[in-house]
Every structure is written in structure tokens, then in C-alpha cells.
């Protein structure tokens, strides 16, 4: 290793990572724990397998730290290509598990290429956007950048795995950092809010209300002359959107998505059917109280009232057994982790590394937001894991590689080439 003297690891990130993995394992153990099985290393149990995955992750970390950093400049395109091929292959030859063709199975273990596609896309995007002649202001490069993201997302979507596909929209934050107008982000958010409003309220009344608000804004703005066209344009855009939402919701979304959204908005109540997950998840979290029931004391957890509790609904275990205190701790740890990642990304001198760092932060932020929002009933149920905490080898390894590639990059920031 040529860079031994100058390599400096960001221990804050590493410790946070280890903390999250440890919290994850404890909660997986609790989620699969029952009075009958108590062995820590039982390979037939999820917590036992997760322990193997963690060992594997540690090995990968060692490997990444050992390898020459210059490799990182070489691998993005091959890795990206490989990733696309694997996504294509899984669509053709993959194993169907609970309705989605997202898995290759080998022996007792299953491998989910969709998880690794995030790493590949991040690398490829960082590589592409750090080219000297790249500029967000130019149309063609911008389109290519979006294409790099869209391609894997479009291959994941038909598995079908809506959750993993929309994760790729997280890259909007990367684009923003590299020059995209923040307006697009706010527009996206505004449309999201408007979408929810459309479902909650009568379209006609909503239209009238918005006409009223914009009318008021036009009235209050004195020098309206030059801008009235813009206002009218926005207004008509909104009105068209309202009209299309109904159509989209009724005709383009699938039943299960529609139901999940309706239940989330409180338009439907169905604690036994589609709403069961959301309802039980909130019961589990809510029953934790302020201090929680204590490790392995969660009744909802122990007796499996929340489906998928060791994977996508792992936050329920945290909520039930560790209470408000534990939940806040995990939320703050994650928030700090993401902020730390952004800060580390910002100190990169090499543009590719910075972009990659942003990609890592964005993906983790997106997973964190959607997963917990889903568990606490703020977002419809989409199956994406909570990074480092949820059970699952593919997801743990993918996130570990994602993170430690960045830590590796960062470790070499003091080198002068």
C-alpha cells in the first residue's frame, strides 16, 4: 500500500456506522427472538445469519481499505455495466420472492442486485459529472446524467419494486449540489403536497381555493404588469395537474398502492387487510411509551404482530422496546450521520469524490426518510430497508460498500498527487 502514511480514516463516520449496525443486530435479534430459541449463533435464525452478513461486511471493509484508491477511478463504468446486466438478468432468471422478481438465490442465501445498483449508479454518476467538460447548464450532459440514474431505476421498476426504484429520485439532491436549480426540488415537493390535497379534498373546491390564493398574491404584488403571464401559467398548470391527479390515481396506480395511500390519508380504514401493517406498526411503536418495554420485552415484537418486522419494519422494534428515548436516539444518530456525510463530502477536493459523497448521503437520507415515515404512518407502505439496521445481506453489504468506498476516498484527501 503506497499511501500508508497519509491515509486518515474518518472515525466519526466509522463509529456511527458500527453503532447503527450494532443497533440493527440487537433489534433483529429481538424481532426474531422467542422464548424457544435463544442461541446467538443459530444459523437458522435471522439474527444468526445477520451476524454472518456483518462478518462479511467487515471483510469487505478490509478489502476496500486495502485496495489501491486509484482503482476507484477505473471501476465506475465496468461496475455500472455489470450492474445493469445483473438487473436485466434478474428480470429474466431471478427468483420470485413475495411477488417480486428481485432475487438470485444461491444455496441458502439470496442476492438482490437492486441494492448494489445504487452503488454502481453513484459511482457512474460521480465519474460522469466530474468530467471536466460536464456542465449542468448544458442540455445533453444533463440528460445523460439523468439517464445514468433513470436506467437502473427503470430496470428495477418492472420487478416490480416501486420502493427501490423511487430511491433513485434521491439523486435530485446531488444534481442540486452540482448546479440544478432548487426550484425543481420545491416544485417536486409542491406537486407531492398538491397530490395529497387532491386526494383529500374535492377537486373543484381545491381549484377554487388555489385560484383565490394566487389571485390574492397577484393583488398584493403591485408591479404585476410583467409577471401576470407567469402567474396565469402557474395557475393553469396547477389546475391541469389537479384534473390529472384523479385520472392518475384511478387509472395508473395499482390497487395496492391506491389502498395504501387511502389508508395513510385516513380515507379508508382497514385494520385487518391492507391497513394491517400500518396499524400494527403504530401499535407496536406506540405501546413502547416513553422508556420502552426493554430489550426482548416487546410483546408485539416477540409475537410477530408486525409483518416484516426484522426487515422493513425494524423501526417498530426500536419503538416498542426502546421507547421514545430509543426512537429519538436512532433518528438523531441517523440525522447526524447524514449531516456528517455531507460535511465530509464538502471537504473533498476531488470533484468525483464530492459528488459520490453527496450520492451516498442522498441515498441514505432517502431510505431513512421513507422507511421511518412508513413505520410511523406518515408515508404509504413501500418496502425499502432502513440502512445498516434492517435485516438483509444484500442491503447491508451494498450500503457498507457504498459507505466505505467514500470513507476510502476521504481517507486519501490529504495526499497530493
Amino acid at each position: 500500500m503506497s499511501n500508508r502514511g497519509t491515509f486518515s480514516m474518518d472515525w466519526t463516520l466509522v463509529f456511527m456506522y458500527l453503532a447503527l449496525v450494532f443497533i440493527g443486530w440487537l433489534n433483529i435479534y429481538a424481532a426474531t427472538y422467542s422464548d424457544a430459541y435463544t442461541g446467538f449463533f443459530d444459523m437458522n435464525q435471522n439474527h444468526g445469519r445477520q451476524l454472518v452478513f456483518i462478518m462479511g461486511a467487515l471483510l469487505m471493509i478490509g478489502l476496500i481499505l486495502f485496495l489501491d484508491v486509484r482503482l476507484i477511478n477505473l471501476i465506475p463504468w465496468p461496475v455500472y455495466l455489470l450492474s445493469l446486466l445483473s438487473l436485466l438478468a434478474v428480470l429474466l432468471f431471478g427468483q420470485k420472492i413475495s411477488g417480486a422478481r428481485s432475487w438470485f438465490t444461491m444455496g441458502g442465501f439470496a442476492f438482490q442486485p437492486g441494492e448494489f445498483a445504487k452503488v454502481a449508479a453513484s459511482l457512474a454518476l460521480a465519474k460522469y459529472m466530474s468530467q471536466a467538460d460536464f456542465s449542468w447548464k448544458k442540455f445533453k450532459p444533463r440528460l445523460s446524467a439523468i439517464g445514468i440514474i433513470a436506467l437502473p431505476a427503470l430496470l428495477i421498476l418492472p420487478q416490480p419494486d416501486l420502493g427501490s426504484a423511487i430511491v433513485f429520485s434521491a439523486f435530485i439532491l446531488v444534481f442540486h449540489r452540482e448546479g440544478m436549480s432548487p426550484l425543481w426540488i420545491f416544485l417536486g415537493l409542491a406537486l407531492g403536497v398538491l397530490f395529497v390535497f387532491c386526494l383529500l379534498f374535492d377537486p373543484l373546491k381545491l381549484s377554487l381555493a388555489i385560484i383565490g390564493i394566487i389571485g390574492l398574491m397577484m393583488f398584493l404584488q403591485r408591479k404585476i404588469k410583467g409577471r401576470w403571464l407567469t402567474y396565469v401559467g402557474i395557475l393553469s398548470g396547477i389546475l391541469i395537474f389537479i384534473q390529472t391527479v384523479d385520472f392518475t390515481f384511478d387509472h395508473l396506480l395499482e390497487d395496492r398502492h391506491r389502498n395504501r395511500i387511502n389508508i395513510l390519508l385516513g380515507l379508508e380504514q382497514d385494520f385487518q387487510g391492507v391497513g394491517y401493517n400500518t396499524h400494527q406498526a403504530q401499535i407496536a411503536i406506540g405501546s413502547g411509551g416513553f422508556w420502552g418495554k426493554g430489550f426482548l420485552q416487546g410483546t408485539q415484537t416477540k409475537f410477530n404482530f408486525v409483518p416484516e418486522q426484522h426487515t422493513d419494519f425494524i423501526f417498530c422494534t426500536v419503538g416498542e422496546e426502546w421507547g421514545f428515548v430509543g426512537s429519538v436516539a436512532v433518528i438523531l444518530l441517523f440525522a447526524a450521520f447524514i449531516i456528517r456525510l455531507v460535511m465530509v463530502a464538502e471537504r473533498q477536493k476531488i470533484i468525483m469524490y464530492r459528488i459520490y459523497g453527496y450520492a451516498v448521503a442522498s441515498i441514505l437520507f432517502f431510505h431513512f426518510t421513507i422507511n421511518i415515515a412508513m413505520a410511523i404512518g406518515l408515508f404509504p407502505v413501500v418496502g425499502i430497508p432502513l440502512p445498516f439496521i434492517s435485516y438483509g445481506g444484500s442491503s447491508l453489504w451494498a450500503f457498507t460498500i457504498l459507505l466505505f468506498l467514500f470513507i476510502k476516498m476521504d481517507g486519501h484527501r490529504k495526499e497530493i498527487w
Partner: protein
Amino acid sequence: MNRRAYLIFTFVGLVALTFIGRVFYLQVIDDNLKLSAENNVIRRVKDYAPRGHIYDRENRLIVGNQPAFDLMVIPNQLAPFDTIAFCEIFQIQPRDLKRKLKAAFDYSRLKPSVIIKQIMHDEYARVHEQLIFYPGFFFQRRLLRSYMYTGAANMAGFIGEVSETFVRDNPQYSKGDFYGVAGIERSYEHILRGKDGVRRIVVDVHNREKGRFKDGMYDTLPDPGKHITTTLDIELQMYAEQLMANKRGGIVAIDPKTGELLLVVSSPTYDPTLMVGRDRTRNYSRLFSDSINKPLFDRALLAEYPPGSPFKTVNALIGLQEGAITAHSHYSCNGGFRFGRLFVRCKCGTAGPIPLKKGIYKSCNNYFCNTYKNIIERYPTAPIGLQKWNEYVHSFGMGEFFNNDLPTGRKGLVPDSTYYNRVYRTNRWKAVSTVSNGIGQGELLVTPLQLANLSAIIANRGYYLTPHIVSAIDGEDINDPHFTVPKYTMVDSIHFETVIEGMYQVFEQGTARFSKIEGIEMCGKTGTAENPHGQDHSIFMAFAPKDNPEIAIAVFIENGYWGSRWAAPIASLIMEKYLTGEVERKHIERRMLEGSLVEEYAKQEAILAEKKRQQAEEKRKAAAQ
């Protein structure tokens, strides 16, 4: 740092704050979720409390408990099995088994359902070892009633499973519970029931049991029902029921000093053990639908008969109190009571003027028609007089409920002025229009219980204690003043002696002289009540011994011709057994035990049917015209 980084910081901050707020709401503010969580995992399982025992006055166990077993099934634990062999062993029709299994599957694959209810111990001993060949089936133990005697069914009553409607009205019960349907089981339900315990069992999402909640810290033990000591003399009750074989009617005997019911017999009756076990439903519906014998109808408490001649004592007492007659008032009977076109026949066969005492033991209709007429005519108008008379009769416990601890009862009927105003459509009727009240006929109706109470009143010389069936709960005597404080009639005790003397002579030289027990001074009054349903009822009212009464009794035998034919001998046998412990007069006993009125009842039914047929005929003819 690039200012574009702050947008991410802001987003992360906002998301974190939103999450913390939401989690705070869920975990700290919203309490419903904690409740839902508990409901998710904790199943409350009842630990049934054993019902209290029922004892008789000598502490003989009448009703106890016995284990029975419900055969249950958990559908998803079933393995394919030989249904034919199974049906053979458990004595169930393959069709029924199929139906029950389907119902169990429809209800829940994981929760137990009942296949056969109430398999009794004998059968259980035979079949329970076979059960290992049928995984998915198991036995659940329940406590059922066990009856030590085949008698007193009408008094003890029986228990049954609560219906959905019952649970809706009585939320302290839940599905599968038993409750007292009839008899003491019903009126003392709250005492006998006890309090079921609750075991909290933790279950997982599939409703599989995972052990006890907090090691049973919050579990409650069942609180067994309290034992009840009744006032019944079960041996005497059994004896009376045997005497009543093949006869219809009711007998009530009271200890006049305490108001305790020594026996309450209704005939025909049924074997209480029929109400337990696998055939209970079939048995019950057979008893319930027997519209001819009506075994579930408690004649001693519910049947309202005309009291007949024993009621003459009441008129004698009222007359004495009111001064309408004295012990020495004499009336001559000329074969009946005449007033204008009214004639009440009398078969007393006396000649010349007779005093009150002889009027009683000869049961002279004329005497008491006159007495009654005198009572009413002491008042300005007949309605006012009748109202006064009515008040007197009510003070004897007739025409009203006792509100005692028996589950059922009837008021009987003591007509008042309003009643006759309605019947005669005027208030200008005279005493003689209602003169049949004088001899206990006409509109008057009493239950055997009320007549027995009359006997107790006379025995006590003027008061009674509300007749009741329970004397102690868990060994502690009842102290309800309703049962322990005497209720006085409106007649002074001084007037009773003449009437008692008359009733004494009934045994000495009157209508019941053949029912006399040697060595015991007995008082009684026979009755032969005309009734609209056919042959006269045989009635007898008595108490003994005369000066220190220990038992007061009333016997009604439906269609038993006349008082001394059935009712008097039966009453005297019961009194002999109670007072001496042994029945010496075997010939009377044999005659009563073997005597049957079944043919008479068949005749009555035939007459009734004929009458109905004729009525229908007439109706049809009328309609045709």
C-alpha cells in the same frame, strides 16, 4: 462550505423534527395504542368458579357439582382420521360430525370449537384414552350440576348455557357461561354463581399460546359460589312426590313458626338429571313440549285453583272480627242458601240451627253464605263492604305476591268492587250477587302456596312469616326482615280458637275423620272445588299438632272428586311422616301410592276435546248461516 449544502441540512433537520414529533405523539400522547397492543397479545381465559351446593334443612346435599367434558377441536391440528371409528367411539352421527367440523373450520382454524358438549364422567372414562389417535381433538373440563335426588326438580331448578340475547342484557356473562334457568338456581343465581377467575395468557399473532402474562401476576383465582341451605326436607319431598305419582296437583308444606317451606311438590314432575349431559337438549324439549302433563309448570307455585271450602275459615275469621257473627251465631241449613231466586246447594246434612264450630266441620255452605252476607251488609253499600272484605283477605296473603325468594309465583285472584262493577256494569249489585265468595268458589283463585300459608296463619293464631326456601347462605342464617318478622292479619288472635276448634273437629268427627293419626291433635279442612275444567278438585288444608303446630300443609289434587278422597289422606301421610318419622297406616299409604287418576285425566281430556269440537262445529254453523 458550499451554501447548497445547507438545503440538505435543512431537509435532514425538518425530517428529524417531524419524526420526533410523530413518535412523541404515538408513544407519549396517544394511549389507545398501548391498549391495542395489550389486546393484541393478551387473551383472557376464564377459570370457571364452581357453583355453590344446595343442601336441604338436614344438611343433606341436594345439588352438587360433577365434572363433564366438552370435546373440542382445533382444525389446523387435525390429521386425517377414521371418521367411522370416531363416530362409533363418540356416539355421534357422521352427518353431525361433518357439520360441526365445517362450523369449526369456518369459525377459526386456530381457535378451539366445541364438537360434543357435556360428555359425562362414565362416557369420558370409556373414551378419553382413545383420543390420542385423533390429534387436534381434546377434552375441556367443565363443572355441571349433579343431582343427588331424583326429586325437587321444580325447586332446585336447573342451569343452562347463556344465549346471545342473555349476554347482551347481562354483560357480566359471556359466551359459554352457565346460569340458573329455573328454581333456586335462578332466584339465587348471584349467590350460587361465584366469581370466575381470569387467567391472562399471552398469544402470538396466530393466537398460539405463549405462556402466562407476567407469570400470572394479574390472574385472579375463581371465587367459588356460596353454598345454600334450603328449608326443604328432601326426604319428605321425595315421599310426597311418590304419593303424587299419577296424580296432578300441588302440595306445599310450611313450618308455621318460621315460614320455612318444608316441601313444594308439583306433579307431574321430572327427573332433574335429565337436564345434564349429552341428551339434555332433547330431554328439555320433550318436557317443554308436553302440553298435557306440563312437567315444567310448577303447580305448587303457579297453578291458581278455587280454594273451595278451606276458604270458609277466612270468612269465619272476618265475620268474628267484624262482629258479623259470633261463635254462637246459629244458622239452620235447609239443604242450601236461598235468597230470592238464588240458591246455593249444601250437602252438610245437618238439621236445625248449628253454631260456627259445627258449620266448619260440617262445611255448611248455608252458614258461610250467611256469614259473608252479614259481613258485606254491615256496610252502607255492597261495594264498600266488599272492599273491606277484600282488604281482610289480602292480609291473609291472598291476591298478592309474596315477593319471596322463589323464582316464580302468582297473585291468585281476590275480586274487589271494581271487578264486580265491571262484571255487572253497575255498582248497584248486592252482597248476595257475590255470595259464592263465602264458600271459596266463584271468582276466587289461590295457589297451593297461598292456601298452605293460610293454614300456617291459622296455626299461628293470626300471623305468618313470608314462606321462603332458603334458610342459610354459607352456613350463615338469613336475616332479611321480610322473612323473619311476622306479618299479622287484620283478625285478632282471640278469634282463631273457635275456627281451630272447628278444624280440629274435622279430624274428630268431620269430613277427614278417616285421615286422623292416632295420638296427634290435628286440624284441617277439606275442600271440593267446582271448577270450569271438569271434575271437582280435591283440596285439603291442615296443620298439626293443634296447640304447638309444626307443620301446615295444603294439598290440591286436580279432578280428585272430593277433599277427603285424595287430598286429606295424602296430607295426613305427609304430616305423619314429618311428625313421627314413620308411617304406620300402611293401608292408606299403599292406597295413595298406587292410586291413579290417569284414567280420569284421559276422560277429562276427551270431554275437553269433545267440547272444543262442538264449539268449532257451532262456530262453523254460525258462519254458514
